[in-house]
């Protein structure tokens, strides 16, 4: 019996050591092959993968980062490659990191090289898409930014001239005896004034951001890559664009009213006729004004959001400081 127990112990040690070695080596092999442990997927697209196959290595700046997991043909010019990347590499891979196919070793094995972008961007997400061209996203964003800025400048000029025109139209003030119009007009005007100030701010901020991106500064890169900021900006521009168009229409209408009233008075039709036309025109004017109000209000809201977005907040604060300083001087 004692001998049997001893034999069982020996057998137990024998089997356990075999299993232990097996498990440890599978773990070590797996760690190398990203089979076990924590990994995440990243996609990238190529037009030609040059014989890359599933299982090829993925290197990040030359460091083993993962393996090619899957290759799929999306359409006749696009092949999507799914990479299995070690989670430990995640903080270093950004949304603007770009992927290229290179050669590995003498045997002609293919390898995917992930190269970090100089421009900072947010960390890659699981299943995110990497680009295979250098800095496409930044270029695109810079273009958008400068377009936005141009638009904003034009709009701001238009709005300012509208406000001035309305303010300076003495004839308008004299004929409009409807009590609601001056009130509405006042609200619209104040909205417009606020909007123009903000437009100036925004223009300055965009200029700042563009400059930072060109200089390769920290937060700017991630800002450009942030979809929410880009959307907010686009939306703001669209809203203010509407407001500006409406105000142009309104200015044209006011002009025509003033001209007609003057003509009527000159032709001796009297104020009664003018008043008749007035009610019709007033309703149109009111309509325009409410549109302006809506547009500017929406724009202001967008700007508010941008001012509080943690990515752009800094820029707006800087701008406010600058404005204060300018006011003092």
């Amino acid at each position, binding site marked *: 019996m004692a001998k049997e127990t001893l*034999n*069982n112990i020996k057998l137990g040690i*024998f089997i356990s*050591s075999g299993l232990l070695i*097996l498990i440890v080596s599978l773990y070590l*092999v797996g760690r*190398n092959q990203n089979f076990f442990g924590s990994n995440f997927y990243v996609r990238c697209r190529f037009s030609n993968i040059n014989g890359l196959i599933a299982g090829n290595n993925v290197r990040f700046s030359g460091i083993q980062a993962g393996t090619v997991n899957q290759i799929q043909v999306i359409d006749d010019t696009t092949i999507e490659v799914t990479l299995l990347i070690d989670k430990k590499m995640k903080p270093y891979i950004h949304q603007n990191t770009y992927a290229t196919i290179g050669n590995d070793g003498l045997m002609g094995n293919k390898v995917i090289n992930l190269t970090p972008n100089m421009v900072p961007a947010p960390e890659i997400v699981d299943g995110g898409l990497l680009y295979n061209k250098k800095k496409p996203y930044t270029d695109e964003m810079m273009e958008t930014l400068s377009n936005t800025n141009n638009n904003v400048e034009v709009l701001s000029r238009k709005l300012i001239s509208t406000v001035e025109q309305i303010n300076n139209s003495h004839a308008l003030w004299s004929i409009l005896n409807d009590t609601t119009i001056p009130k509405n007009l006042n609200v619209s005007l104040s909205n417009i004034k606020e909007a123009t100030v903000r437009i100036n701010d925004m223009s300055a901020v965009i200029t700042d951001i563009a400059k930072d991106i060109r200089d390769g500064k920290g937060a700017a890169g991630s800002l450009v890559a942030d979809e929410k900021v880009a959307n907010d900006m686009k939306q703001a521009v669209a809203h203010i664009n509407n407001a500006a168009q409406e105000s142009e229409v309104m200015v044209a209408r006011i002009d025509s009213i003033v001209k007609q009233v003057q003509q009527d008075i000159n032709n001796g039709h009297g104020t009664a006729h003018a008043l008749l036309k007035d009610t019709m025109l007033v309703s149109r004017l009111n309509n325009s004004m409410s549109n302006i109000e809506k547009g500017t209000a929406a724009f202001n809201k967008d700007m508010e959001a941008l001012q509080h977005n943690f990515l752009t907040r800094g820029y707006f604060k800087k701008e406010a400081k600058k404005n204060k300083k300018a006011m003092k001087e």
Partner: protein
Amino acid sequence: MIIFMQLRVNVTEFCIDFNCMKIPSSLLGFFNEIGAASRFVSRYFQEVVQPRYEVKQFIKQCFLIGYRSLPLIGITGFIMGLVLTMQLRPTLIAYGVVSKLPVMVSLAIVREIGPVISALIFAGKISSSMGAELGSMKVTEQIDAMEVSGTNPFKYLVVTRVLAATLMLPVLSVLSDAIGLYGSYLGVNIRDHTSLSLYFFEVFNTLKFGDVLPAIIKTFFFGFAIGIIGCYKGYNSSKGTEGVGRAANSAVVISSLMVFIIDLITVQITDVLGLN
């Protein structure tokens, strides 16, 4: 398998039928043998799942078959690792890739040499002893005695041995791989200097699941083939001392051959599956 079973059943008639057609009786004997072996294998699979289970005897066989084979297989693995390293070194130096020595050796050991050498040694040691042991038990009516004692001798003798061989060879093979790699590490260190951790880092950096898993899986088949052939030969050995000797001898020859055939099949399968 069914065809073979029928063939076995009808083999006497076949002999008569075909004699006039001059079918060599050795060919019929061959088919008869394959048919009988197939029946033996299918009986094994029937009995291995049916209770009652001879657990104690199985553990005893694991000890005898597995643990007792470790020294022999370990020494062989060690020598193979060492020798392979020393033999490969000059060639790798000539091509300027001596740093790939751990890579080459680990691939060779893990994929092929570890499993196959272990299996061959195992076949020599285990298959022959099974053939002789069961053969002599058959001849001295011990198997009949078990049967009349209410113990199913197939379960008690064959199932436990085959199962133990199937499960122990993979363990032995893994240990042999490990010992072989250590031997190779020593082989590297005869001329060069490398730390154990660096050496094994290189080894595991090279190995993929496609190298390790098929190699381990095939050892189960090796173990099964070795066990079942040894038991089949012993269990069906003819009367007399000569029959026992023949059983032991043919068990070794056939199971060694079978190891290579299974190896060939595995390499084809892994190739088709793209595991290399």
